[in-house]
C-alpha cells in the first residue's frame, strides 16, 4: 500500500506504475522530498521520457564533433584550435503568461548553457511563432516577447543576429519562443560539467534562491499550508545584469585548473544540476540546503531543492582551489555558498543542517527513467491538387510582401543589438547571419528554420525541408554547413496524432541530417503545447551553424551590380500546397508540401559553394516562403538594385511559377562573363539553371505584367508590424 496518494502523484506528474517502480528501486517508500526529486528528474522536461527513444536515432557523431548531446550544449571544431558551442531551447509556457519575462529568462537560460561550457557567447538567434496579429492578445504576446528577448540580450551584451517569426492561428494563446545561443572556446578550455573526484567542493553562485518555478502546488502538505500556492511566483523577473557578471566570472574560473566543473541551474534547479554533475562523473553528491542563500524566509528543503530561480550556477572546485575561485567571485561582487561536496558513493544526499532529508541512488534517478512510447496514429491524408488563380501578379506581389509572414523583420531586429562584440559581418535581414571568428579570418554562419505549414501537411517531409532550408541559407553566405541543433515543439504526445507527428518529424530530421552528413549535437524538446484542447502545429525548429574558412569569400544575398545576370538554380514544380500564396488566397491547408529531394539539394548546395568560392557569383539568395517573385523582390531590396526580366515561363501554372515554394532553389547573380562558369558547374552537378534577367534600374520588372518601383516595393515590404 503506497504512502503517496493519487493526488500527490498527480502533483509530481508520476503514474502509479512509476511510483511502484520507485519503491522497487529504493526497496522502500520515498519520503515527500524524495518523491518530489523523482518527479522532477523523471519528468518529461528532465527525463525526456517520451522522446528519448526517438532522439536516439539522430546522428550525432562525426569528425568535427567535440561534444554531442548530453552536456549543456553541443560543441564542434571550427578550426584554429577553436570550438563552437551551441544549443537551442524553448520557453513557450512562461512566455504565454508573461511574454516579456518569459522570453527574457529563456534567453538567460540558453546563454548559461553556453558559458557553462567555458565558451564566450557570441550570438543569439530567436525563432518565434504567434497567432495572427489581428487579435490584440497575440499582438501583446508578440510585442512582449520581442521586447523581452532584446531586453535580456542587449543588457547582457551578446548580439542577436538572426531568427525567424511566423504567424498562424495554430499559435493563438500558445506562442513558440525558442532561443539559440552560440559561443566560442579554445578546444583545451571546453568544459564538461562532470565531477569525478570525491572530496571536491560544491559552490552555489549567483542569485539567491526563491520559491520560483516549483511544481506540485499543494504537494508535501505536511510542510506547506494552504497559502503556499500564493507564495509561488508563476514567472520570474530576469536579471541579465547578474547573468553578465556570472558569465565573466565563469569564463575566468574556466581558466583555473582547480575548477573541475561548472553547471548552470535550469529545470528542477539544484536537484537536477547536482545530480547530473555527479552522475556524469560516476560520483555522488551531498548537499546541505540550510546553507543556501534564500530570498525568502521559511523555505523548506523541498522548495530549496526544486526551486528554479534563474541566474544561478554550481561550481565544483578542488579544496585547494576554493580560495582562488572565491577571489574571482569577490571581484564580481558575487556571493558563493559552499553547499556540499562530491562523494564516492553514487548517491544524492540532501541534508538540512544535521538532518538527512533525502538519500537516493543516482542511477535510479537518472538512468532508470521509465520511458514511454505512446500510441501513434497517422491522420488520414489525401493528395489534393492545389490549383490557384493568379489574376494580377503586381497586386499579388505587393500583397505578399505585406503579409506578416513575409514583410521585413527590420522593425524587430533593430530593437536587438546585433553588433556588439564587433564580429557581425552579415547581420539579420539576409539568409543566414555571418560572424567573424575573432582573431581569425574565418566566419561562422548561423540560422534557424522551420515551416509549420509543411510540417502540418507532412511532419516527415516538412522537417526534412527545414534541414534543407537551413543548410541552403548557410550555403548562400558561402559557408559550409557544419552541425545542427533543434527544438521540437509539439502538442500533447498522449494524443496519438501528436505522437505520430513527433515521431515522423524526428525521423525526417534524422534522415535529412544523415543525407547531409550533419551531426545533431544538441537540442531541446517542448511537449504539451496544448491550450484548451487545441494543439499547436508540429513545430520542429532547426538551428544550424556553418563554417566559412575565408571571410573574403563570403556572399551577400542582395543584387550587387547593374548588368549582372540573374539565374534561378533548381527546379520549379507545381507546388502550392502550404504556401504563403495559398494562405493569401484563403485556400485551406491541404495537399502535400513541396517535395524534398535530398540528393538534388546536396548537389545544388555543393555546386553553389563551388561557384561562390571561385568568385563566379556576386549574390545568392535562397527561395523559401513566397517563392520566386518574392525572392526577386527581396534580393532587389536587399541590394538596392532593380531587376529586368522577361515574362517568366515554365511547365507549371502562373501561380506556381510566381509564388510556388518548390524546394532546392536559389537565386544568384553573376557578371555576364562568369555565367558560363556557373552553367558549367551546375551542369556537372545536374542542377538546372534558368537565366531570368538582368540587374539594373530602379524597378522590379518581370514581363509586361509586373513593373513596380523599388520604393513602392519597399513601402509594402517595410510596412508597420501592427498592420494586420
Amino acid at each position, binding site marked *: 500500500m503506497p504512502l503517496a496518494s493519487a493526488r500527490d502523484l498527480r502533483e509530481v506528474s508520476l503514474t502509479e506504475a512509476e511510483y511502484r517502480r520507485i519503491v522497487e528501486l529504493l526497496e522502500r517508500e520515498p519520503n515527500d522530498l524524495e518523491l518530489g526529486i523523482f518527479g522532477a528528474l523523471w519528468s518529461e522536461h528532465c527525463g525526456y521520457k517520451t522522446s528519448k527513444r526517438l532522439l536516439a536515432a539522430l546522428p550525432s557523431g562525426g569528425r568535427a564533433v567535440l561534444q554531442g548531446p548530453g552536456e549543456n550544449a553541443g560543441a564542434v571544431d571550427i578550426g584554429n584550435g577553436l570550438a563552437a558551442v551551441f544549443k537551442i531551447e524553448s520557453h513557450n509556457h512562461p512566455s504565454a503568461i508573461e511574454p516579456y519575462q518569459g522570453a527574457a529568462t529563456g534567453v538567460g537560460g540558453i546563454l548559461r548553457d553556453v558559458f557553462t561550457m567555458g565558451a564566450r557567447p557570441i550570438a543569439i538567434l530567436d525563432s518565434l511563432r504567434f497567432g495572427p496579429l489581428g487579435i490584440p492578445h497575440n499582438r501583446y504576446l508578440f510585442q512582449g516577447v520581442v521586447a523581452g528577448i532584446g531586453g535580456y540580450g542587449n543588457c547582457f551584451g551578446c548580439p542577436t543576429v538572426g531568427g525567424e517569426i511566423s504567424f498562424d492561428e495554430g499559435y493563438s494563446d500558445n506562442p513558440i519562443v525558442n532561443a539559440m545561443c552560440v559561443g566560442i572556446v579554445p578546444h583545451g578550455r571546453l568544459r564538461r560539467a562532470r565531477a569525478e573526484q570525491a572530496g571536491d567542493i560544491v559552490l552555489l553562485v549567483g542569485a539567491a534562491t526563491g520559491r520560483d518555478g516549483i511544481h506540485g502546488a499543494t504537494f508535501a502538505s505536511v510542510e506547506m499550508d494552504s497559502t503556499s500556492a500564493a507564495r509561488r511566483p508563476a514567472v520570474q523577473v530576469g536579471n541579465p545584469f547578474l547573468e553578465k557578471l556570472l558569465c565573466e566570472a565563469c569564463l575566468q574560473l574556466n581558466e583555473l585548473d582547480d575548477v573541475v566543473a561548472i553547471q548552470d541551474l535550469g529545470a528542477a534547479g539544484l536537484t537536477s544540476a547536482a545530480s547530473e554533475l555527479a552522475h556524469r562523473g560516476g560520483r555522488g553528491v551531498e548537499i546541505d540546503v540550510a546553507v543556501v542563500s534564500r530570498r525568502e524566509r521559511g523555505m523548506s528543503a523541498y522548495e530549496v531543492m526544486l526551486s528554479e530561480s534563474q541566474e544561478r550556477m554550481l561550481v565544483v572546485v578542488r579544496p585547494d582551489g576554493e580560495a582562488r575561485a572565491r577571489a574571482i567571485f569577490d571581484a564580481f561582487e558575487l556571493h558563493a555558498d559552499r553547499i556540499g561536496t562530491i562523494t564516492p558513493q553514487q548517491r544524492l544526499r540532501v541534508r538540512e543542517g544535521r538532518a538527512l532529508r533525502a538519500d537516493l541512488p543516482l542511477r535510479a534517478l537518472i538512468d532508470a527513467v521509465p520511458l514511454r512510447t505512446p500510441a501513434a496514429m497517422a491522420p488520414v491524408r489525401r493528395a489534393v491538387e492545389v490549383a490557384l488563380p493568379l489574376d494580377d501578379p503586381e497586386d499579388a506581389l505587393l500583397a505578399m510582401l505585406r503579409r506578416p509572414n513575409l514583410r521585413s523583420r527590420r522593425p524587430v531586429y533593430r*530593437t536587438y543589438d*546585433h*553588433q*556588439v*562584440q*564587433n564580429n557581425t559581418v552579415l547581420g539579420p535581414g539576409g539568409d543566414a547571419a555571418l560572424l567573424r571568428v575573432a582573431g581569425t579570418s574565418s566566419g561562422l554562419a548561423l540560422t534557424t528554420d522551420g515551416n509549420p505549414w509543411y510540417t502540418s501537411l507532412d511532419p516527415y517531409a516538412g522537417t526534412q525541408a527545414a534541414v534543407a532550408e537551413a543548410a541552403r541559407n548557410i550555403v548562400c553566405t558561402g559557408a559550409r554547413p557544419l552541425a545542427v541543433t533543434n527544438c521540437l515543439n509539439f502538442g500533447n504526445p498522449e494524443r496519438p496524432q501528436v505522437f505520430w507527428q513527433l515521431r515522423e518529424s524526428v525521423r525526417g530530421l534524422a534522415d535529412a541530417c544523415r543525407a547531409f552528413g550533419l551531426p545533431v549535437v544538441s537540442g531541446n524538446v517542448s511537449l504539451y503545447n496544448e491550450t484548451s484542447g487545441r494543439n499547436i502545429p508540429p513545430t520542429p525548429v532547426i538551428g544550424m551553424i556553418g563554417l566559412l574558412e575565408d571571410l573574403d569569400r563570403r556572399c551577400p544575398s542582395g543584387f550587387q551590380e547593374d548588368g549582372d545576370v540573374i539565374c534561378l538554380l533548381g527546379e520549379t514544380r507545381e507546388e502550392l500546397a502550404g504556401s504563403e500564396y495559398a494562405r493569401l488566397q484563403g485556400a485551406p491547408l491541404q495537399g502535400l508540401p513541396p517535395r524534398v529531394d535530398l540528393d538534388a539539394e546536396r548537389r545544388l548546395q555543393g555546386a553553389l559553394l563551388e561557384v561562390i568560392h571561385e568568385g563566379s557569383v556576386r549574390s545568392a539568395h535562397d527561395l523559401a516562403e513566397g517563392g520566386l517573385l518574392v525572392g526577386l523582390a527581396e534580393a532587389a531590396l536587399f541590394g538596392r538594385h532593380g531587376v529586368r526580366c522577361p515574362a517568366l515561363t515554365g511547365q507549371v501554372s502562373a501561380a506556381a511559377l510566381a509564388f510556388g515554394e518548390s524546394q532546392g532553389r536559389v537565386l544568384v547573380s553573376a557578371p555576364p562573363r562568369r555565367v558560363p562558369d556557373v552553367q558549367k558547374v551546375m551542369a556537372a552537378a545536374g542542377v538546372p539553371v534558368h537565366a531570368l534577367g538582368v540587374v539594373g534600374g530602379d524597378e522590379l520588372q518581370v514581363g509586361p505584367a509586373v513593373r513596380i518601383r523599388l520604393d513602392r516595393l519597399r513601402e509594402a515590404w517595410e510596412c508597420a508590424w501592427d498592420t494586420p
Partner: protein
Amino acid sequence: MKTGIVVFPGTWSDRDCAYALHDVLGEPVRYVGHRERDLGDLDLVILPGGFSYGDYLRCGAIARFTPVMEAVARFAQDGGLVLGICNGFQVLQEARLLPGALLRNASCEFRCEWVSLRVEQTWSAFTQGMRPGQVLSLPISHGEGNFYADPATLEVLQTNDRIVFRYATPQGQVAPQANPNGSTAGIAGICNARGNVLGLMPHPERACEALLGGSDGLVLFRAAVMALQAAAV
C-alpha cells in the same frame, strides 16, 4: 597615447573599444576596474557602452558613484581626455561632467542601426582634423539616448560651440526623420567647456573596419591621437 578603458559591472563595449584602439589602431590600452583610483599613466580614458549595473534605476546612476569616477573627475579636471560612449555618456552626465540627461527614446524602443552624424565643431580634442559639416556613419545601440537639456543649458552649449555631433541625413541635413531617438535639436554628442571631455551616443568602436560595415569611427579615435601629439609638442 595610452588609453584606459573603464569596466563597470555590466559594461560590455570594453572589449570592442580595446579591439578598435589596440587591434586596429595599434595603440596601447589597459582595462581600468571600477574600484581603481589611479589613472596616472593614461592619456585617454574611455567610459564604454553597456548596461552598467543593469541600467537599473537610471542609466549610469549607480556607476557614477564607483571609486573610479572620482579619479575620472580629477583626470578630466587636469585636462586628460575623457570619452564617454553610449552608457559612458550617461555616466558622465550623472556625474555632472557633462550637462543634460538622456531620456528614453521617443519610440520607447531600443534602436540598433547605422546613423549619419554631422560634425558641428572641430575645436574639441576629438574633432580636430575633421571638417565642419563632415558626415560620419556610425552605429547606435541604445534605448535611452534622447538628449535633454533645459533651455538655458542648451543656450550655453550652443553659444560655446559645444554641440559636437548631430543626427543628420546621409547628405548632412539635420532633420526629424534622421533623428533616431527624439534628441533635442538632434544632438548626438556634446563636450565640456574645455573640449577634453566628449560624450556621444553612437559607437565609434563598432565602425573601424570595412568588413563590419564602415570605418568612420577611426576618424574620431585618430583625432584624439592627434590632439595628444599636438599637446605633447
